[in-house]
C-alpha cells in the first residue's frame, strides 16, 4: 500500500493509532485519512485513502488486498453541448488502465461503473450538468472491477454529491472442486472455473449489477450471490466507519461544525 509521507513545516501532527485503524493527518493543504480495517476472513484488508487537496476534485484510493485504484469525481460541472441532458446530470465514467490506452475490455467496466453510479446518484437534482468519475487502475491482484466500483462509491461519498443510496461490489470465484471463494486474489483466480462480481445497493441489498465469466449452475450462482451479499455488509459498515473517522477529524479540528 502506498502512503505518501509529507511533512509540512509548522503544523504537523503525528500519525495516531486508534486500535487497528490508522489515521494520519497532514495539514497545510495535504489532508489524508487512511483507514485500514482488517476483516476477519472474507474481505481482506480493504484500505481506503481519502484525499481532498484538489480543486473541485474528490478522490479516493481504494485498496482491496493488493488491488488498488484511484478515483476522482468532478462535478456537477459544465457539460459539453453534445452530452447535455435537459432533465438530469449526464454521468460519465473514464477508466484508465495501468499501462497503455483504454481497451475494449475497459469499456465494459466503464459502462458498468457509469450505469451503477448514475442509478445511485440523484441525477435529477443537477440538470444540464456533468458528473465525471475517473478511475485509474494502480494494481490488479484480482477483483479489480469490484475494487473500482467501491472506489467510485467512496469518491462519490467524499464529494458530497446527493445520492439515493450507496453501492458495494463483492467478487467471488468458483474453483474446480466447486468451492466458492469470496474476494479471491489473482493467484487463486488462475485455478477458477468461474468468477462473479456483484454490486449491491445499501437499502435493500438488491442486485444492482452483475458480471460473470465462466460456467456455473443456477445453484452455484445463488449460493455465490448469498455469500457476496453477506460480504457486502462489511463494505457498507466500512463506508460508515470511514465517514465517521473523517468527520471525527473534522470535528476535532473545527468546532464550528458542531452546533
Amino acid at each position: 500500500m502506498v502512503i505518501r509521507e509529507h511533512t509540512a513545516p509548522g503544523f504537523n501532527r503525528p500519525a495516531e493509532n486508534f486500535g487497528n485503524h490508522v489515521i494520519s493527518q497532514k495539514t497545510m493543504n495535504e489532508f489524508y485519512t487512511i483507514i485500514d480495517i482488517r476483516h476477519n476472513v472474507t474481505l481482506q484488508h480493504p484500505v481506503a485513502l481519502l484525499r481532498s487537496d484538489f480543486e473541485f476534485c474528490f478522490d479516493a484510493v481504494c485498496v482491496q488486498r493488493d488491488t488498488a485504484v484511484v478515483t476522482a469525481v468532478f462535478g456537477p460541472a459544465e457539460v459539453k453541448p453534445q452530452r447535455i441532458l435537459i432533465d438530469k446530470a449526464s454521468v460519465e465514467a473514464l477508466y484508465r488502465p495501468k499501462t497503455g490506452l483504454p481497451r475494449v475490455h475497459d469499456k465494459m467496466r466503464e459502462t458498468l461503473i457509469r450505469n451503477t453510479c448514475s442509478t445511485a446518484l440523484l441525477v435529477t437534482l443537477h440538470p444540464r450538468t456533468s458528473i465525471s468519475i475517473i478511475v485509474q487502475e494502480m494494481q490488479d491482484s484480482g477483483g479489480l472491477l469490484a475494487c473500482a466500483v467501491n472506489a467510485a462509491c467512496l469518491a462519490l461519498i467524499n464529494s458530497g454529491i446527493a445520492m439515493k443510496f450507496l453501492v458495494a461490489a463483492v467478487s467471488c470465484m468458483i474453483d474446480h472442486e466447486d468451492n466458492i471463494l469470496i474476494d479471491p486474489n489473482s493467484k487463486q483466480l488462475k485455478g477458477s472455473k468461474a468468477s462473479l462480481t456483484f454490486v449491491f445497493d445499501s437499502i435493500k441489498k438488491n442486485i444492482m449489477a452483475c458480471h460473470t465469466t465462466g460456467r456455473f449452475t443456477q445453484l452455484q450462482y445463488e449460493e455465490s450471490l448469498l455469500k457476496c451479499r453477506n460480504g457486502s455488509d462489511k463494505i457498507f459498515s466500512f463506508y460508515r466507519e470511514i465517514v465517521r473517522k473523517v468527520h471525527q477529524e473534522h470535528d476535532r479540528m473545527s468546532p464550528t461544525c458542531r452546533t
Partner: protein
Amino acid sequence: MEVNVGDVVLPGDVIQAPNTNDKGKLILGPGLCRHMDEVLITTSGVLRKKGRNVYWVDSHRKRYVPVKGDTVVGVVVNRSGDTFKVDIGSSEQASLSYLAFEGATKKNRPDVQIGDIVFAKLLEASRDLEPELVCVDSYGKKGKLGVLPEGGFIFTCSLNLIRKILNPKCQMLKILGSEIPYDIAVGMNGKLWLKTKSIKETIAIVNAILTAEHLQHHEIASLCDDVINALKGM
C-alpha cells in the same frame, strides 16, 4: 438504516420518526430529501438539528451549487447585450444585468469590464434556470456589493472553510485586521478576494486562511499571532 441527530449518516439512511406533532412541519436543509412519508439522507456527513424542526447534514464540499440569497465573488468573463456573464464556480455562468447596479439607468451604464471581479448577491438560483446576480439590495442601494477595486488577489478554498471563517465565533479576520490593514470579500462560492498594502502581507494572510482549514479556534488565534509576528519581524 434509521439514524438520529448527531449520528454519522450515509445516503439512503432514514431519519428516525421526526417530530410530526408540530403541525407536521419540517424544514429540511442540505443533504436531505423527502420520499413519501420518510425523510431520506442524500449526502454523507453528520446529521444536525436546530430548534424543533430544522434538520440538515454537515458535509464536506468543494463544488459550489448556487443558492438563492448567497453573496458570491465572481469574475466577469463575457458580455452579451445587456448582461454580463460571471464565473462563480458553479456548473453554469451566472448572469448579471447592467441595470443591477446602484444608480444604473439605460443611459448611465455602470463601468464594468471583462476581467473585473464583482461581489454580488444571487437573486435567482434554481436548478433549471441560469443563476442571476445583482449588485444592489431591494432598496436599490449597493451596500457592500459591486465591482471590487483593482489590485486585489483572488483565491479559492473549500466551502467548509468559508463557513468557518464567516462563523461569528471565528475571530481570525478580526485578529489579523487588528495588526494588518486589509480588505477582504468572502464569497459563499469558495472564492475570496483580498487586498493589502504589500504582496508580503497578501501571501501571509492567504496562507493563514488556507491553513485554518483543519485548525481549532484557539489554534487559529495562535496561528494569527505567528503570522503577525513573522510579518513584523521582517
